[in-house]
């Protein structure tokens, strides 16, 4: 009997330890009679301080776009892009009996354009009078290489960046002949020797042009100087070509674009230094962005710490910045990009880092749902940034700046409404969760 009792006691004990059905039921029963312990609030009352700043310089070397053209912008004045290139052949080898027929410049459109392509433009090809070289091997939108004042040739054309594949500009025979013969006669055998005769070219728009800025590919298979030559034979001559192209060289860039605007605007002209910020309230409630010339929007949230005035303990679950370009500032000729790039800067507007969103760089994207009457609104997810601003213990006067992609090789502009617009103001939309009401 005792054995039985003991074994049954043991049995129950073992049972007790082995059965533990604590898996969680999944059906939605009973949820109606409980409220969430968390309050979630949508807030959009924080001040968004929008200002304009201008980079002293933007790196434009090593670009894959030859950017040339000039147009008059209603905000930025005369916007002018010109390109500086060093072209050279891959091999310095020609048959000794080759004879030059003609020489020309081929520029392959890369489909980029800005402003009015229905107006005629000028392309002035000048020879560089100095090497395309710099001490630090970086060129900026402000860099310049001296060139012959008289152009080698001037081409008047109507750009067809969307419809045509490339543009051909015939170059003078007198330009090509010494180069061709130098290579053929083995007087020019490398780049050093080539530079003694030919340092490169710059492509400048006409001084009085008000048409468009056009992008050509800098790829060696799309844009090049082509020498057409012939090797005489007994019956039919053999025809062939030699190409000078922009050689890819990461250490010594062979191309850069100079992008400048000349402005006589008393407000924007105050931006003579990268550290200066022009608040949008002082510039007609607008902020001005242009690629190439270096204008960007600078954004701060000066009142964000008022979030802590809300009683209880909480945390933000999302933060979205909404920015709107006034519809009158873009059209088919002055198209607007559907995304914006975001970077963090310090109090002197020096770039410190890039913002991330789920491992990817943050981009502002046009929200299709908010498009009303074809008005565009950019939405920028900046939760991580706002969270950090809220949690930093010391006051850090940093900000983030907003500009279009291809900042170094285009002239896209974006005009944004500032914080005091009549029908739209730049706004920060926060989702804030309070998980403890008591404290």
């Amino acid at each position, binding site marked *: *009997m*005792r054995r*039985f*009792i003991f074994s*049954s*006691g043991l049995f*129950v*004990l073992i*049972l*007790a*330890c082995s*059965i*533990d*059905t*604590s898996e*969680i*039921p*999944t*059906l*939605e*029963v*009973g*949820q*109606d*009679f*409980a*409220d*969430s*312990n*968390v*309050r*979630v*609030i*949508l*807030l*959009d009352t924080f001040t968004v301080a929008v200002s304009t700043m201008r980079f002293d310089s933007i790196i434009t070397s090593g670009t894959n776009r030859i950017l040339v053209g000039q147009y008059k912008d209603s905000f930025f004045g005369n916007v002018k892009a010109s390109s500086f290139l060093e072209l050279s052949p891959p091999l310095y080898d020609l048959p000794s009996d080759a004879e030059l027929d003609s020489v020309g410049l081929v520029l392959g459109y890369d489909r980029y354009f800005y402003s009015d392509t229905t107006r005629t433009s000028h392309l002035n090809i000048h020879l560089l009078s100095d090497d395309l070289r710099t001490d630090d091997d970086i060129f900026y939108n402000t860099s310049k290489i001296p060139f012959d004042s008289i152009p080698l040739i001037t081409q008047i054309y109507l750009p067809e960046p969307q419809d045509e594949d490339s543009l051909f500009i015939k170059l003078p025979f007198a330009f090509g002949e010494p180069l061709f013969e130098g290579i053929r006669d083995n007087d020019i055998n490398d780049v050093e020797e080539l530079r003694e005769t030919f340092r490169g070219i710059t492509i400048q728009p006409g001084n009085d042009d008000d048409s468009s800025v056009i992008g050509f590919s800098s790829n060696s298979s799309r844009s090049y100087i082509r020498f057409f030559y012939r090797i005489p034979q007994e019956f039919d001559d053999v025809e062939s070509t030699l190409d000078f192209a922009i050689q890819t060289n990461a250490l010594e860039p062979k191309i850069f674009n100079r992008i400048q605007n000349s402005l006589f605007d008393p407000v924007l002209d105050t931006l003579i230094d990268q550290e200066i910020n022009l608040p949008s309230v002082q510039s007609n409630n607008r902020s001005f962005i242009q690629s190439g010339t270096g204008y960007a929007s600078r954004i701060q949230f000066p009142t964000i710490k008022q979030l802590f005035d809300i009683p209880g*303990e909480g*945390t*933000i*679950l*999302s933060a979205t910045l909404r920015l709107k370009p006034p519809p009158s500032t873009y059209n088919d000729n002055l198209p607007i990009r559907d995304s914006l790039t975001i970077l963090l800067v310090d109090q002197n507007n020096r770039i410190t880092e890039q913002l*991330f*969103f*789920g*491992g990817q760089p943050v981009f502002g994207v046009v929200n299709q749902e908010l498009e009303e009457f074809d008005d565009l609104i950019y939405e920028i*997810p900046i*939760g*991580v940034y706002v*969270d950090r601003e809220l949690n930093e213990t010391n006051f850090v006067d940093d900000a983030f700046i907003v500009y279009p992609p291809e900042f170094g090789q285009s002239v896209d502009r974006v005009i944004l409404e500032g914080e005091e617009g009549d029908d739209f103001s730049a706004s920060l939309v926060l*989702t804030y*969760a309070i*998980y*403890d009401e008591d404290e």
Partner: protein
Amino acid sequence: MMRMNKGKLCIWAGLVAIYCSHSQTNRLTGSPYSLFGLGIESSSNVGKNAALGGGGFALNNPNAINIRNPASFGTESTNSFVFDIGFLGELSTIQNNTLEENRLASNFSSLAFSANIDEKSTFALAVLPYSDVGYSLLGIESNIEGSFDQFNSNIFGSGALNNFNLSYGRTLFKGLRLGAKISYLFGNVEETEIVQSGISGLTVAETSTYSGVQLGLGLQADLTKHIKYGGAINFPTELSGTQDRTVTKILDFTQSPVESETDIQLEKFELPWEIHNGILINPWKNLFLNFDHSFRAWDITQQQDNIGEFVDQNIFSMGAEFNIDTNGLKYIQRMQFRTGYYYDTGYLSIRGENISSRGISFGIGFPFGRGNSSMLNFSYTNMDRGSTNTILVQENIHSININISLKDIWFLKRKIN
């Protein structure tokens, strides 16, 4: 004899300690009503009370433990030692006006023993669940303030409060027994809420630890040869609590910690006055009838939790026990047959509606052998709680209590050494 007694006691105390550490993490319920307060009152029972409608304040059997009334330990006996181990399994069906769901919860539920000090007094030690928490509330939709959008949250709770109970009862004079008890209530309640708002998420995980001491007194009087009265009161007490809280969130697809705080002081949870009365009638041979009433004065604690409010609670119960012949030669003659019923008005009022419950129970006691008072008690209870009115849910719970009550196994002397 006493020396041996002490040695055995140590072993039992060790077992009790192991049980305590184990039971804290176990979940014995799946009731959404356990969201409120410190969970729902546990239906685990020591001994045979579960089969008798849950009451039995006047029961005094020296062969079984009656944890309901400490005065019952005053029953005169010699060298009595009773050990009781319990197992509880619950299958519940939960439904609101549209949905139905089954939940299963089961576990080792209680451990108790009592031992004589002298002929007139006995003490008892018991560990059993006090309340159980186990709920999953999915898809709670709430408005995002300042917008027309909603956010979604899921709330999960688990945990249990345990009752470590020391009782002492004594016969004052023949027919009148007094008892006192001290209960140490302790345990953890874990609640995790997961909030989903758009692509962002917030997880709030809270572990609340409560503890407190409750005192109780009991009295049993033999009114006539066939009628006994039992009464007990539990004094109001406060359970103090601290909370550890961990909050994390997913912001812009990146998970990050928000805070991790420990030892947050919680508001004290008040347990009310409890007044229990019962009578036991023995109208005929081996038939015993018990009628009991319990009252808990929740109103004056003025407590509420979420949308639930605590209200005065009345429990009415009755039970009957019968066997053919305690000393019968046939096994079936010695088997005990039990049944019971109870009605509980509930301690909780949700949006003005009391969450009442009612249950019917059947049980059989299987004696271990002739001339041996050890019992295997088996009981089945079918219980309804709540209603499907409006937003409430109704639970139908089938629970099975199995108890092994061992009597005097340590004191059985071998006839031949």
